[in-house]
């Protein structure tokens, strides 16, 4: 709410009526069934990339390498699809998903392993890995895997229409949304209802206590990073298999960074990620209309994301204060 007021002031200072802007955003995001679909399509990768940050968050790690995991997952998935041109679509898609998940998973595991074995700050290393992943992607799509027909926009060969993920019957939505929701539910179950999840939470709460209890903290870090990266890789695979049909630099569409925000707003809770991702998907979906209706640049949405983020972090300190008050009162 505070962020809405702040953003309203910001928009007003840019010379637009804040109430109208919010109205436009609402219409563009949730007004019609078409805009709902637009919103949900954008929410699908956000759910998966939010898991990239949320799951390591249980261990107290701040990993922001979702972008790299998406890029790597998409790249691996596309390459996998291209190596088996004659296989039936079902086999191709399954392989793509698996390979994409392994690609993204291994990529984030690098960050986790560096943290565990060398005490490298995982935030910085995962960010650097994003840039390296993008460079690797650009290198491969301009050299080894380049489709000679993609002149201005270097890309891999198209994976073939038959291998694309179709739409859910009756809508324009692709199955990626289902992947996202299911992944969030699985992640929630994993973290809250299994021994593994409990062990991770203990390790996140107090590393020393976990070590005394004989928990393999290092292995937990590696596994969680792999699972988190796999979610990001799946997002990349969905982008390739459902939307672009090929791997190129459009994979690097800032879903990874927006996912960090979703994870923070959802306080790392995988179930809370679903509604938050839909909300942010709506905000992102509205950026185009906002641009046309109010002549605001599309970066307006970036500013809004930043403001939400700062306000959420700020409210963290208020939580502490309220609980203190309650304790004193009791």
């Amino acid at each position, binding site marked *: 709410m505070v962020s809405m007021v702040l953003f309203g002031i910001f928009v007003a200072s840019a010379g637009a009526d804040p109430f109208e802007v919010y109205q436009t955003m609402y219409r563009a995001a949730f007004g019609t069934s078409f805009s709902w679909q637009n919103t949900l399509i954008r929410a699908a990768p956000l759910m998966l990339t939010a898991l990239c940050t949320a799951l390591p968050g249980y261990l107290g790690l701040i990993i922001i390498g979702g972008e790299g995991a998406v890029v790597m997952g998409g790249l691996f998935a596309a390459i996998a699809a291209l190596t088996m041109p004659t296989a039936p679509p079902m086999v191709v898609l399954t392989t793509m998903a698996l390979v994409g998940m392994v690609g993204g998973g291994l990529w984030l595991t690098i960050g986790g392993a*560096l943290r565990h*074995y060398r005490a490298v*700050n995982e935030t*910085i290393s995962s960010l*650097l890995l994003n840039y*390296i992943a993008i460079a690797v992607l650009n290198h491969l799509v301009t050299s080894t895997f380049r489709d000679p027909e993609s002149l201005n926009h270097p890309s891999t060969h198209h994976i073939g229409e038959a291998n694309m993920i179709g739409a859910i019957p009756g809508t324009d939505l692709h199955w990626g949304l289902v992947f996202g929701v299911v992944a969030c539910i699985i992640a929630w179950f994993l973290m809250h209802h299994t021994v593994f999840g409990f062990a991770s939470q203990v390790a996140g709460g107090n590393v020393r206590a976990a070590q005394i209890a004989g928990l393999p903290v290092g292995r937990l870090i590696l596994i969680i990073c792999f699972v988190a990266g796999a979610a990001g890789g799946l997002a990349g695979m969905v982008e390739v298999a459902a939307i672009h049909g090929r791997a190129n630099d459009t994979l690097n569409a800032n879903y990874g960074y927006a996912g960090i925000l979703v994870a923070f707003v959802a306080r790392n809770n995988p179930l809370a990620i679903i509604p938050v991702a839909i909300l942010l998907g709506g905000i992102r979906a509205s950026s185009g209309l906002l641009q046309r209706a109010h002549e605001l640049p599309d970066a307006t949405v970036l500013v809004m*994301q*930043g403001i939400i983020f*700062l306000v959420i972090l700020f409210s963290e300190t208020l939580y502490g204060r309220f609980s203190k008050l309650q304790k004193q009162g009791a």
Partner: protein
Amino acid sequence: MEIGWWGVLIAVLGGAIRIGTPFLFVSLGECLTEKSGRINLGLEGTLVMGAMTGYAVSLHSGSPWLGVLCAGLAGMVLGALHSWLCSFKRVNDIAVGIAMMLFGTGLAFFLGKPYIQPSAPRLPSIDLGAWSDIPQLKAALQINALFLMGIVVAIALAWMLKNTAWGLKVRVVGESADAARALGLPVDRIRILSTAQGGFLAGIGGSYLSLYYPFNWSEGLSSGQGLMAVALVIFARWHPVGCLWVSLLWGGAAALGPSLQSVGITGGYYIFNAIPYIMTLAVMIITCSPKRTLVGVPHELTVTR
């Protein structure tokens, strides 16, 4: 005159100075911030914001130096905001850094949309290569005054941290906030001041990007340079003069790809461009260890915190 491979070397040296200058300013800013016990990942946003501000002000006023000043001031505001948010309880400075990074770049793109096309007055350069008649060498030795200022700032900062009462206060706060409080030092105020000054330097670094090299304002201007500053400072062992050498090294590494292209090695363009990131990661892997802390690290920053 054909100079072949010497051309590569000269281009790398020239590039080290040209591309290294923004690294120098950002890492000096980060160095000061970290000395006071904070990490500011938001310097990435500060850099972009500084680039935008510098470009806009220089375009409207016609004076690039005024642009540099305003870029620094914009950076200072962002740095102060970052530090002010961090000074509350339970607020993680790395998370705030990410938020400030998104906020700063978003704001810069938002305000900077109108400035993508017009061209602003450029910062003048000083011709140190006038004695030579090799054009490549001349081009490499065109040095911007900001680089020289950066050297002065690096030395001055090193001197101040070591020899002045203010420098001592910053170091005490960075070493142990508790000790500083026991001495009656205003910990939060010192950190806010240091972070704001760090932001000022980073803003200047940003204005260099838009006003000198690569000399335009576009949205992909700073690709992670503000983040790499964190690793640069580690490599420089939290010493401002060390930041100077490390920035030159990074500038040279970034210039390697383009200069190899000039002698006809074009393969792996993107990989060469990724060298600074890979180097940064490699440095962090080599220098970090769970078992020992580095010489010169402000103790408030150690992992076991």
